[in-house]
């Protein structure tokens, strides 16, 4: 990648991003803009996948909300993402946990946490 591209991206990258591992449960606090007002909204879910590099890195979070699976893609370096915390370490043996989508009930968001 061109040095210049990196220079431009550097201005927009966050200095500190917590170490994210696939299968972790992550809480992302996102600034929501509704008309004039701004408020914070938390989205806590299992990290299904990480995609992209540099400024384009996004994470795919999945949670079960009132019995319905909800997924959200969030750019890791987005200025709207005000806080990012790993709440639970998970253990996954693959890079994309799309198989969790076909799971139902208690197992739905389970990633092995025994080592």
């Amino acid at each position, binding site marked *: 990648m061109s040095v210049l591209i990196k220079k431009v991206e550097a201005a927009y990258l966050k200095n500190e991003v917590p170490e994210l591992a696939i299968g972790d449960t992550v809480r992302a606090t996102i*600034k929501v803009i509704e008309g004039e007002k701004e408020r914070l909204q938390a989205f806590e879910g299992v990290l299904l996948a990480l995609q992209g590099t540099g400024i384009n890195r996004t994470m795919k979070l999945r949670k079960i909300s009132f019995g319905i699976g909800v997924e959200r893609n969030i750019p890791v370096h987005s200025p*709207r993402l005000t806080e990012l915390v790993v709440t639970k370490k998970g253990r996954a043996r693959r890079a994309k946990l799309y198989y969790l989508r076909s799971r139902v009930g208690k197992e739905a968001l389970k990633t092995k946490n025994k080592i």
Partner: protein
Amino acid sequence: MKVLATKIGMTSVFTEKGLRVPVTLLQVGPSKVLDLKTPEKGGYHAVVLGFGARKAKKVTKAQAGNYKKIGTEPVRIMREARSEEAPAVTVGQALDVSLFEGVKFVDVTGVTIGKGFQGVVKKYRFRGGPGGHGSNFHRRLGSAGANTDPARVWKGKKMPGRMGGENRTILSLEVVKADKENNLLLVKGSVPGSRNTLVWVRKAVKRT
């Protein structure tokens, strides 16, 4: 007036509102105004731009004479930017991204990426055939015209052939940022040509 720029590549940046927008980085020059052409001297208004540097020993004697006449060092690329009216620049002036400060929209002209010899499906977005169920009609162009009358194929019939490698201008691209520090112009969206190619940038003619 249009100026020379190098297409560096694409990435994304975040806007103040926190939206991620795709941008193309254009390094504007820095090119130098080598000469001005006027109706009296040359027949029309134009700016002669020089970009980069060339070793003196790589220059032919004829070229060296021309450089001497206009009084500059040899340049890598020399181009003329024609204009209707007399441009507001002076000989020796360096043209860089500061020209586009406060400009909201630009037009970018470049040579599109060459695709080689392509069929009509890719080249003209023809639909092609159904493929399966014994149709034996896959990616052909179908009929080329009528039979006895006119007994020939109309001029301009869309047929397979060379695609790409043409001059294209993209109008009214939004300027996301004019980065003076790195001499870069960040425009929203894509721009013709591959990386490291030369493009022309001007203030948008249809939008301000």
